[in-house]
């Protein structure tokens, strides 16, 4: 059963289209990831799905309820962890959770139990009576995630759940998201610009850029679509080499990216000498070469034509998988 269905969902702000006729569906019980750079329209989509923004056009349904006509029922069935902090800093951590629990109608005994459960999970139990204004950024984030989990919703929206967290906490949160998805069969809709996060967590991902969904499939299918191995080349004359290589049948998806070319191939390591021979035959010298299994990075590059825009946030570990020679030549 599809628990989230959108139909041409569109949001325009003063002539600028943030989300452009987006159409997708998410099956019940899966972890679905929206992958895209900042400003791609991820948060706007979440805000429309969680009834915080009215769509300019189109509509969507969550758990069978229309986001325009049955707003109260939609809210009943969802939980949200916002990207930007949404805590009352004048209250303590425990009070914030208690506020949330009561707003969602949790009975008293369950409230107490759940509060200590989620606080233990995010390792804030000993800070529960400290005012949130005295929390660090990471602690606030953890408290928010704890709050999103409080009422065990059917669909949990996570907008950049691990933005600004250290590697250790990210891992813990990932594990918990997986566990929550398995144990309580909570459908999870998350947005991220971290490739490793999407890779680790999601069954299905949709790549979104400039308000449009470019492709949507399982992580494995997407990786395969790029090729079994990805070869990255940089040479004295990219255009000439590319034209020559396009004739080779064993190459799939040859794409220029300014200073470098990527191509997909079976058993890439055996193809490198072949490529060198071809290059020499047309007087092109190769300055750098790299072969590896495709990552979501390659998938993203393949479908959007650019890398995910540079982020200045921490905890990007494992995202960058390009050889050093290529990193410097990344397109803006």
């Amino acid at each position: 059963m599809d628990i989230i269905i959108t139909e041409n969902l569109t949001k325009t702000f003063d002539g600028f289209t943030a989300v452009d006729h987006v159409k997708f569906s998410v099956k019940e019980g899966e972890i679905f990831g929206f992958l895209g750079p900042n400003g791609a329209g991820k948060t706007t989509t979440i805000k429309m799905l969680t009834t915080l923004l009215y769509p300019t056009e189109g509509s969507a349904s969550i758990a069978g309820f229309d986001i325009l006509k049955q707003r109260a029922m939609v809210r009943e069935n969802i939980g949200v962890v916002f990207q930007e902090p949404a805590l009352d800093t004048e209250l303590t951590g425990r009070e914030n959770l208690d506020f949330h629990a009561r707003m969602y109608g949790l009975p008293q005994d369950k409230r107490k139990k759940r509060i200590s459960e989620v606080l233990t999970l995010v390792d804030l139990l000993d800070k529960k009576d400290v005012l949130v204004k005295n929390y660090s950024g990471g602690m606030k984030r953890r408290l928010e995630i704890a709050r999103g989990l409080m009422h065990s919703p059917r669909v949990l929206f996570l907008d950049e759940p691990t933005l600004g967290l250290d590697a250790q906490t990210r891992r813990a949160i990932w594990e918990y998201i997986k566990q929550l998805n398995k144990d309580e069969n909570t459908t999870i809709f998350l947005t991220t610009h971290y490739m490793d996060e999407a890779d680790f967590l999601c069954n299905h991902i949709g790549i979104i850029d400039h308000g449009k969904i470019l492709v949507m499939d399982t992580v494995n299918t997407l990786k395969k679509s790029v090729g079994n191995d990805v070869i990255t080349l940089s040479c004295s004359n990219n255009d000439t080499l590319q034209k020559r290589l396009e004739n080779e049948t064993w190459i799939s998806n040859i794409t220029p990216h300014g200073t470098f070319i990527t191509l997909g191939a079976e058993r890439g390591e055996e193809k490198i000498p072949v490529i060198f021979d071809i290059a020499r035959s047309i007087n092109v010298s190769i300055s750098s070469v790299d072969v590896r299994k495709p990552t979501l990075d390659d998938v993203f590059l393949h479908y959007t034509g650019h890398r995910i825009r540079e982020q200045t946030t921490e905890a990007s570990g494992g995202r960058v998988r390009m050889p050093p020679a290529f990193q410097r030549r990344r397109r803006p």
Partner: protein
Amino acid sequence: MNQKDFQAIYMLWLRQMKRFLRSKSRVVTTIVQPLFFLFILGFGFNLAVFPGLQGSYINFLAPGIIAMAILFSSMFTGVSVLWDKQSGFLQEVLVAPVSRLSIVIGRTIGGATIALFQGLIIMVIAIALGVPIAGFQGLVLTIIIMILLSFTAVGFGLIIASKMRDFEGFQSIISLILMPLLFLSSMFYPVNESLPGWLQILSFCNPLFYMIDGIRGSFTGVNYVFDPLVNLGIILVLCIVIMGLGTYFFNKSEA
């Protein structure tokens, strides 16, 4: 409205109480500022002669000060939605499965409780300063008007908050809207035939006039223009209209 909505109203009320009591500076300012008015203006103008004024000036001024304290405090509650908007907390409230109406009610009752508390403190101080009370019934009527005034002001604050993006414009709203309303409210001087005609008309167009006149009539029993019950009727209508508009604008605003 179901049980969950009442739970939400209680929670929003409780949140306001906690925030108010934890913000010591706010507790102090909101009580001290009206007292400055009461003492300095009250004693400063004590010997001044106003046509039609019965009794001492401080007796005349005290009901206005009570109303002013409630007005400022409640309007602040309404406008503080902006704070929640900027801090992101409003999203947390709006995405919860409770009706928008209960969110407005929770905030209003919370704001009214704080405002009433402040109004009552000023009232006690005024009585201690020798302002005469009209009687028990008058006191009950005064408190009813105080509550309605507070609801109206929260609603007014909600309307302003829905039209503002940040606090930049807040200062100009105080000087362009609130100050003229206060000056025309008969708070500082009696409104009667001795005033120029246009000033009288402006006063009668001012919603705050009826609130202060009503409090004065019910609380002290002198110097009022309309019967307190007439004032009450006008205030009730005003309150319903403004609260309705406030709820409407709050509903329409997107987080």
